[in-house]
């Protein structure tokens, strides 16, 4: 399974390690202000600090392993579906309480449409309208979730 792309420093181990180190570092920054306490009287920071330190250690181990040995290559990132799908969720979140469920769904579908190159706008439009109608019936009318349909 080893390919040239998985060479030292450019493999899943190295970048996984880096990711864990980054998360642990951010956590440690925020844990800093919490009191740690002792084993007998643990403060709110005791558990998070321990976990973050273990995570930091494991991350460093993985990163070093990735630097010293070859590993599996990392997959390639495709920005178009990533950005479009994430944006579509953001749009839904922004609009659902301000403009109502129907507009939020239409906006989400409109943005998500561009995530794939295979979509056709007529089909997406019909799907969007059907989804909005079906959601209105299922979620609002049948399951009674407390959300406005329109502004």
């Amino acid at each position, binding site marked *: 399974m080893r390919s040239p792309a998985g060479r030292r420093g450019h493999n899943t181990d190295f970048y996984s390690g880096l990711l864990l180190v980054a998360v642990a570092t951010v956590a440690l920054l925020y844990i800093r202000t919490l009191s740690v306490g002792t084993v007998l009287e643990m403060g709110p920071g005791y558990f998070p600090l321990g976990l973050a330190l273990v995570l930091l250690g494991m991350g460093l181990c993985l990163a070093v392993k990735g630097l010293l040995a070859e590993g599996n290559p990392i997959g390639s990132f495709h920005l178009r579906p990533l950005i479009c799908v994430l944006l579509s969720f953001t749009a839904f979140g922004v609009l659902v309480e301000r403009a*109502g469920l129907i507009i939020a769904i239409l906006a989400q579908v409109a943005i998500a449409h561009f995530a794939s190159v295979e979509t056709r706008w007529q089909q997406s439009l019909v799907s969007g309208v059907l989804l909005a109608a079906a959601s*209105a*019936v299922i979620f609002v009318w049948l399951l009674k979730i*407390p959300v406005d349909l*329109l502004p």
Partner: protein
Amino acid sequence: MMRIAAAVLSAGMALSATAASAQEWPSKTIKLVVPYAPGGYTDSVARITARYLEKELGQTVIVDNRAGGGGIVGSDLVAKSPGDGYTLCICSVGAISVAPVAQTTSYDPVKSFKPVSVVSTIPQTVIVNPSLPINTMQDLVAYAKANPGKLSYGSSGAGGLMHYSVQLFDARNGTKMTHVPFKGGSPATAAVVSGEVNLSFTNMTDALPQMEANKVRALAVTSAKRNEFAPQLPTVSETVTPGYSVESWNGLMAPASTPDSIIAKLSDVLKKMAADPEVKKSMAVVGASTEFTTPDEYKAQIAAEVEQWRELLKEIAEKKN
């Protein structure tokens, strides 16, 4: 297609109605926010209230559970909502009178809301595991003094009423008991039943069924007066700690910018509700007593409570140093 057309039409009508004056309130669905998870005691009170408001106001009232942070998240949401009378809150003592003192909240318990009325009150019950040689409040104080730090009490979480009511008790009696927090009042009560903790100042809703089955021994209620559901129980005040009074309340509150005409209308409805036999019966199952206060009385009560907890916390902080 008909359904969509109908939805569009009714939404359009709702839109034009919002513009109308508060005189015609309520003209659309009212959202009653409950800052706690569904199924709890506040949730039950809110649903009973919603049912009554719906009947009296002729508009749909939906219960919207916004749990989080011991009631802070939902209360905060209501404080920031538009004061149009369509977002109301069944708030509770924990998030309104205790939390703003004990931690930082972005709302002010007195300034951010317009209180309408207390809807129901419920005392806490002092319950102990029956295997303990404690039969009265006097026994409890004596035992706690003889064994400092040995008695443990369960609470619904740090900073909640179940925690602070024991803190207040400790401060007044010079006792020291060990705090064991749980995730909610119900597991804390269960822990008294199983004996994992020795006692708890638990609310009447959770305590009553266990008392009836003799799974726990009840010693007293924390309210100033005896309780109608367990009249045989003395109050903490009449036994060991004169003047001790802790009562949990749920009340209807609105965002501060709500017009007074809407508050007045709501106040009238709640006054009728407090006297309604159906409502009284439903509240009794929860272990709660119905109540009515005027908006002014309610506001004064909150201000007084905030002061009480502020002083207690100061007292505790001084003792620690």
